[in-house]
């Protein structure tokens, strides 16, 4: 029931915020804040209560589970379940949820109720994605987070919001439908083998598949997640959507929506189709390395603050993809840490971009320079997160990328080599960002307000968490391990079954 509460709180609070905004804008903001905070606390309590036993849980048990019949005609269940992986990603979801509500406090001035409705519903959809164990429910939630995100970009975005929002919608919708076809193919194959119609993840895990059909289905899933992740040839929606979205939208996009793609790869692509995934791994890993280098290079060439940060996402998520398809303990742990650390460091960079835009009404780095002299605390925070993004030891991103590189080294030396160059490029673009925007003389005589209390309150916890992950990631790894072992076990037993 707790799991349903997590979704229901966001969903209902969205409606309440919408209604409340008619008489008070502040009420809508407070309702949204309360809802995300409540979810965060619930999730935190679940984590703390189960922390001791998570690593002892037998492999067939979930931390929390809920299973109702939904549409028996098709064997569809309303099946939610939480393991360490979902738990951590939900922590991230609600944390960034709080951040996005706070960061919109002054930025959003129009249609406040409808904004919070969309924001909370997109979070509800993401929560559903991380918890769904029924493939139909998963697809349902996957599509559900699209519409509110579209509205967030299309209504409160910047100059080219129409173009960006439609592009985002079309890319995700088309890839989602391909995944639906793959899901159905799996559904009917499973029925042909067992005479049971089911969308249950755990039952579908054991479906015997011929290698060619497994290959096609795997591709269907892969494309859907690759668009979200994004993997390089399919990434073109990302810079537009991230740049044009309002700050909260960018935070949710970069911090969470991209993670749903990685989550899908981890949870579905490899365990459901281990053989096909193994055959496909070299291609995926090459694509990942291309993404790392290409994203880094393009980030280096941008002059728009938000666009630069957007391209760094392409680069960082390349490490996640590399880690997932190298598929060993180290790389999987690395991928998870990168997902969470990237969510926070990139989210924070988007927050800073938003704060700058609120003050200067521009994102052009050519019009910045020397901001340190006028807003030292803001600039300091920016430097901190830029360092996080470039992978400074002691901060979260470093741990993740280091683990991925370490694990990939066992699989392929050459790919590791090129991926490491990617880390080097990160140094260039991150330092260039800091140098152009914040250092140097204050040419344009900017007089900017420094961080106020609310803004400091947003950024401080992010700094703390990033440091914590960088210095002591063990709790995360402990929580993730049983889930990871289960995924590996599923993949291995599947492979054995089909051989």
């Amino acid at each position, binding site marked *: 029931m707790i799991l349903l509460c997590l979704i229901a709180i966001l969903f209902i609070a969205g409606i309440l915020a919408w209604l409340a905004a008619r008489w008070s804008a502040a009420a809508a903001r407070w309702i949204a804040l309360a809802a995300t905070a409540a979810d965060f606390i619930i999730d935190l309590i679940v984590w703390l209560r189960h922390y001791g036993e998570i690593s002892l849980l037998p492999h067939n048990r979930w931390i929390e589970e809920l299973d109702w019949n*939904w*549409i*028996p*005609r*098709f064997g569809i269940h309303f099946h939610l379940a939480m393991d360490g992986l979902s738990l951590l990603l939900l922590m991230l979801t609600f944390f960034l949820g709080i951040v996005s509500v706070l960061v919109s406090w002054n930025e959003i001035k*129009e249609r406040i109720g409808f904004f919070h409705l969309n924001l909370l519903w997109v979070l509800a959809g993401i929560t559903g994605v991380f918890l769904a164990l029924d493939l*139909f429910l998963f697809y*349902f939630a996957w*599509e*559900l987070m*699209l*519409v509110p995100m*579209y*509205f967030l970009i*299309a*209504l409160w975005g910047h100059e080219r919001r*129409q173009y960006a*929002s*439609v592009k985002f*919608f*079309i890319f995700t*919708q*088309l890839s989602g*439908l*391909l995944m*639906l*076809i793959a899901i*159905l*193919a799996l*559904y*009917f194959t499973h029925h042909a083998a067992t005479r049971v119609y089911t969308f249950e993840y755990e039952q579908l895990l054991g479906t015997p598949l011929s290698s060619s059909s497994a290959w096609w289905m795997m591709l269907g899933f892969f494309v859907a997640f690759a668009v979200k992740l994004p993997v390089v040839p399919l990434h073109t929606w990302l810079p537009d959507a991230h740049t044009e979205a309002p700050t909260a939208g960018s935070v949710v996009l970069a911090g969470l929506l991209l993670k749903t793609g990685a989550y899908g790869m981890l949870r579905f692509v490899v365990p459901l189709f281990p053989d096909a995934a193994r055959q496909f791994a070299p291609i995926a890993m090459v694509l990942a390395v291309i993404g790392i280098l290409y994203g880094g290079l393009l980030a280096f060439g941008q002059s728009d603050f938000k666009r630069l940060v957007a391209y760094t996402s392409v680069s960082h998520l390349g490490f996640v993809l590399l880690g997932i398809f190298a598929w060993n303990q180290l790389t999987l742990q690395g991928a998870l840490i990168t997902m969470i650390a990237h969510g926070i460091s990139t989210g924070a960079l988007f927050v800073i971009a938003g704060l700058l835009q609120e003050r200067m009404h521009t994102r052009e780095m050519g019009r910045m320079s020397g901001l340190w002299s006028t807003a030292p605390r803001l600039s300091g925070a920016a430097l901190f997160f830029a360092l996080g993004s470039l992978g400074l030891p002691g901060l979260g991103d470093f741990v993740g990328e280091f683990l991925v590189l370490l694990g990939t080294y066992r699989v392929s030396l050459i790919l590791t080599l090129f991926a490491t160059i990617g880390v080097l490029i990160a140094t260039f673009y991150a330092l260039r960002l800091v140098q152009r925007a914040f250092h140097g003389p204050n040419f344009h005589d900017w007089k900017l307000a420094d961080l106020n209390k609310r803004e400091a309150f947003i950024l401080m916890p992010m700094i703390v968490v990033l440091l914590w992950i960088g210095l002591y990631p063990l709790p995360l790894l402990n929580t993730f391990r049983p889930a990871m072992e289960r995924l590996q076990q599923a993949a291995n037993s599947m492979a054995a079954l089909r051989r």
Partner: protein
Amino acid sequence: MTGADGIALLPLIVLAGTSVLVMVGIAVRRSHRFTLGLTLAGLTAAFGSLWIAAPLAPRQVTPLLVIDHYALFYFGLLIAGGFAVALLAYDYLAKVDINREELYLLLLIATTGGAILVASSHFASFFLGLEMLSVSLYAMVAYLHPRRQPLEAGIKYLILAAASAAFLLFGMALVYAGLGTMEFGRMAHMLETGNNVMLISGLALIITGIGFKLAVVPFHLWTPDVYEGAPAPVTAFIATVSKGAMFALLLRYFYRSGAATNHRIRLVFIIIAIASMLAGNLLALLQSNVKRILAYSSIAHMGYLLVAFLASGELAVEAVTFYLVAYFITTLGAFGVVSALSTHDREAEDIDDYHALFCRRPALAGVFTLMLLSLAGIPVTAGFIGKFYIVVAGASSAMWALVIILVVSSVIGLFYYLRIVAAMYASPERDAIETGSRISAASGAVLYMLAVLLVWFGIYPEPLLRLIRTVLRA
């Protein structure tokens, strides 16, 4: 004909009786409200009589009509559609200065015609039902005759529908000449053996006639003009009741006569389905008139339905039926919004009429958004479950190519649905904020009801699915 036959036919008798009553009522006392009340009462009575007729089903009443659960289910759907259109028409007609009452008479006759189509098991009743439907539609399309556009649309519809009816008749004649029977059920085994030119050409001509009514490519050319020209409630009627009845007949005729398994016929339908899906969605991209956009989108939706039709087995019939229910709700809702926004001298058909609608009329904009998302097949709406059903049906018959074309073309469709949505939520120009009149009670009730149904079937479709399954299995 026995008494039991009469009871089985009760829904049809009530419908026909109501039309006579309304006609007499108009002659005695011309009152808009009274006529509407009479119409709604008659439709409600006909709907209620479904439960009286249900215990007798399935029953063959004369060789012409078969009253089975399938027919009764579609009666219910058509009557509910007619009910909604009557309410929408009430508000619409209240705004224009014209004799209003006859529209309800025509509406009732057309609904009766549709019901006869759904129940027909014989060429004679098929043609009779079709003509009852079509002839009343000519008048309904041109109902606002002082305006130029409806008149033009009416004439266009009249000529093309008459021509297609001639094709249909010729086709029936050829099939009859080849097989010596006009009953669907008795054609079954003969079609397998008699594979001669006369039969195939007869069937091809029948497909032409049906295809015209359904407005599938290449028989779709009338659709945008008629949709645009006809008054919005009438457009809603053409899009739902007329097409729904025709599709129900298509299903019955081709399954009963066994023509659906004939591979040449299948090939024809595959081509029609692909062409409709692609052409409908691509041509809609070029439009800036909301009614025309919805017209082209309906062509695409008929293509989707044909995909389900081509899938074999009970899943196909279920999918078609569910999709039609969802399509009825969605289309009635969409045209309901258009009709509610229309003023006394023009219809709200240009996309600019919807600019910043969310600021001016948030409720209407919300309903329209839901309807458009349902047409696009986005979750939480019945359209999503419907599209899912069709994809399942297609996948179960391993028609991957058709399914993929469906997917791709529905993504193309997103462009124009989103265009309308984006226009509705755009910020208003400062000087142009006029909060329009409140939505009137009748259309308000219909639209909210449709929105609730849409979301209900989108989130928890199981009751409807169970109903459809029990109906079709019986």
